[in-house]
């Protein structure tokens, strides 16, 4: 749960800190090319990490009690929000770039870039909050106190 969650959230933060900043500075043609390639790389890895972390957090919540359970449920809930919001908000934007041939700029690319950036910054904050909940669930009310054995 924590290993997958750490890598997933680290990836989200890396995108928010590095790629988003660079994409803002590129012209639309360069952005469309780089964004399309980046999404192709990130797409299989990030959802897999999110699913592993979410599933493990759900199992942890089911065997924990007290504060650990509440925190694990909060973390799982935040991960579920990230998953659903990614499918509803980010995926349609990603596919607009992905389904076009490489180098072709989709219509309204500037609006899509702005929307994706805003969404991703919110998603990164939610990811950090989810990871913090899961870490605190494990450390502050950890196995010896919070998890039924």
């Amino acid at each position, binding site marked *: 749960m*924590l*290993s997958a*969650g*750490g*890598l*997933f*959230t*680290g*990836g*989200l*933060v*890396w*995108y928010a*800190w*590095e*790629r988003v*900043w*660079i994409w803002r*500075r590129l012209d639309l043609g360069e952005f469309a090319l*780089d964004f399309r*390639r*980046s999404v192709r*790389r*990130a797409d299989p*890895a990030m959802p897999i990490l999110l699913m592993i972390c979410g599933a493990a957090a759900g199992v942890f919540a089911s065997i924990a009690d007290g504060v650990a359970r509440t925190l694990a449920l909060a973390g799982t809930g935040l991960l579920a929000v990230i998953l659903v919001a990614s499918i509803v908000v980010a995926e349609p934007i990603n596919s607009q770039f992905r389904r076009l041939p490489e180098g072709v700029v989709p219509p309204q690319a500037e609006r899509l870039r702005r929307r994706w950036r805003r969404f991703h910054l919110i998603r990164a904050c939610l990811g*950090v909050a989810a*990871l*913090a909940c899961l*870490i*605190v669930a*494990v*450390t*502050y009310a*950890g*196995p010896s106190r919070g998890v039924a054995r």
Partner: protein
Amino acid sequence: MSQWWATPMLLSGGLFAGGVVSIAWERVPAWQTTTISDFRMGFAHTLRRVDRLQPALLSICLVSTIGCAVTAAGAARSLAALAAAALLLLLVGSVAWLVPIQRTLKSGTQLPAAAVDGLRARWRRGHLIRTVAAVAQFTLAVVATIV
């Protein structure tokens, strides 16, 4: 183990390892296919951003992992000490091996294409080793917390 040390250790360690893995997974393949000049420009842009965040996360993680090792007992102490040693190795390896390559590539100095290609290959190899070390270190930190 003190929870006050474990929380920052896991949070900063996770974000650090996730960042390193993302560069290895997303940037390294992209840089392999670009031209030498595009690679140098993209590499410099990435470094400019990453050099502010990653060392800060690494430092927080190192201090809190040492804190964990000091306050823990038994297996947790050994694992946290091992994780701290791995982080220290990672830090020294980065400074000794990768930072000089980064400085050379980032500088505006004209270099022959073959030299840049060689540096790119060396940096890639070094970064992949760093990625494996960072993931192993983070895993050790997680295990130290739950034992």
